[in-house]
């Protein structure tokens, strides 16, 4: 299932993407696209290149000096390596990390950090953005009375939703989730998943997860990565009930990985 021509409704279009760190080939020949308003789940065992793929999309890998990339990645038709500068790209492609690390500031300042950085200084506008973002991240009701407390006082699950709110506050087109629930309990996980399903109405989401069940619960389509290659991509229902590739079947039925 290789897509070669970009379509207008594709937020992310990726063709023949190769990534290397020094001699180590992290991704080989990835071609896929992500449609507007869908959740694409990416599953695969450790070291399959899932996280590298995400970090290529917002060019965060480029902090590594040995990083080399080949191929094309388009964000709404614009080449992310040549037509968009990194700061703008990362504003439009937000990322949620595996470990929720709030910045060392108050809850309010954490969410207002991005908008402030992009030049918004009016208190009223910032308050509006902060409230809306916290509501979208399902956190507003729990923190509305203590916005001026340090963000470190929140629980792990709350911190992760704060990080989601922080990302929403800069108004991204695409949100990348890098194993967002790996450190969370089932109830916190459920809340994050809930917010994800709500958010896909307005954002395009790519979810990397080690939890196969999570991918089957929330994603519209699912991709299976193995050793830096895209083995299979398809509608979540189809991929989980009738995978085309034997390796996919073995992985989702828990025979390896």
């Amino acid at each position: 299932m290789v897509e070669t021509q970009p379509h207008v409704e594709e937020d992310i279009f990726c063709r023949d993407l190769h990534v290397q760190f020094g001699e180590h080939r992290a991704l080989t020949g990835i071609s896929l696209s992500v449609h507007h308003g869908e959740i694409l789940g990416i599953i695969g065992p450790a070291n399959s290149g899932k996280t590298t793929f995400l970090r290529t999309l917002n060019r965060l890998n480029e902090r590594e000096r040995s990083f080399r990339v080949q191929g094309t990645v388009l964000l709404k038709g614009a080449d992310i390596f040549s037509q968009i500068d990194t700061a703008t790209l990362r504003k439009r492609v937000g990322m949620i990390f595996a470990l929720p690390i709030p910045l060392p500031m108050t809850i309010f300042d954490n969410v207002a950090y991005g908008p402030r950085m992009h030049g918004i200084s009016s208190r009223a506008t910032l308050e509006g953005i902060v409230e809306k973002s916290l509501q979208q991240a399902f956190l507003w009701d729990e923190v509305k009375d203590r916005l001026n407390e340090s963000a470190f006082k929140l629980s792990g699950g709350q911190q992760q939703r704060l990080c989601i709110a922080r990302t929403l506050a800069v108004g991204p087109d695409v949100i990348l989730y890098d194993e967002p629930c790996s450190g969370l309990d089932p109830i916190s996980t459920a809340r994050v998943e809930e917010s994800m399903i709500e958010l896909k109405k307005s954002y395009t989401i790519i979810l990397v997860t080690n939890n196969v069940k999570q991918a089957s619960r929330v994603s519209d389509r699912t991709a299976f990565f193995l050793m830096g290659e895209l083995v299979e991509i398809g509608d979540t229902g189809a991929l989980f009930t009738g995978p085309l590739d034997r390796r996919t079947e073995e992985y989702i039925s828990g025979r390896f990985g």
Partner: protein
Amino acid sequence: MMTLRGLREFCIEKAIFLCGVAAVVFVLLIFTFLMREGFSLFFKIPMTELLAGTHWYPISDPPRFGILPLILGSLVVTVGATVLAVPVGVASALYIAEVAPAGIRDVMKAGIEMLAAIPSVVIGFIGMVTLVPFVKRLFGLPTGLTALSGSIMLGFMAMPTIVSIAEDAIAAVPTEYKQGALALGATRWQMLYRVVLHAASPGILAAVMLGIGRVIGETMAVMMITGNAAVIPESFLAPVRTMTATIAAEMGETVKGSLHYQALFAIGIVLFSITFVVNLVADIFLHKIKR
């Protein structure tokens, strides 16, 4: 009955204990000695005349022991050195910790540590033959031995302390903060300024305080290049005399136990109190980081 092994353990333990306590004991002894030699002056000369007196004429008749010009001299030189060294030092720490490629980083760190190893008399000497004539010509002054010259050279001496401690603080900022900021679309400078400097600020403040402590206590270089005029400085381009330089210059000429001798110790007490407070503040900030 104690066995041989037990005895050895006992001796080693006590010896280590003595070494550990020695440092604290020395500080206490120095403080006691300072107090014993200088404190009686506070009864002979009113505190206000000592601390607020504007004339330091220790060997005229009657002698006048107003140390305000000396305190102001130290203050002017210290403020000048701080204003010069802090921005440059912090920027340099930021460059070494965050921007410089690995090769340049090692060279720069070694270079800055070398700067710390230069004896202060050499710094004073170099200032005397290069900076002092330059300042004199640049501003058309009768002498280049000014507070400004002293500030510049002391700034150099405070740099290594500021750079190496600030660099440690900046390098200790978790990568997650940096990534988090970058992932929100921060440019490198926005990330450094709003997140890295912010998170490292207690450590940077501690670095600044330790740098200031070094500058206040410095004697040799300031004695050589600040002109040693014990008058209240009117500008950075006037000669000044610091507390440390006064003690160093005059201690050799005094009669032990005389009023002048005691006055120098009184200066020592004032100096000790100032550096104590500065170090205490630095310590508080350093502890704040650990928590």
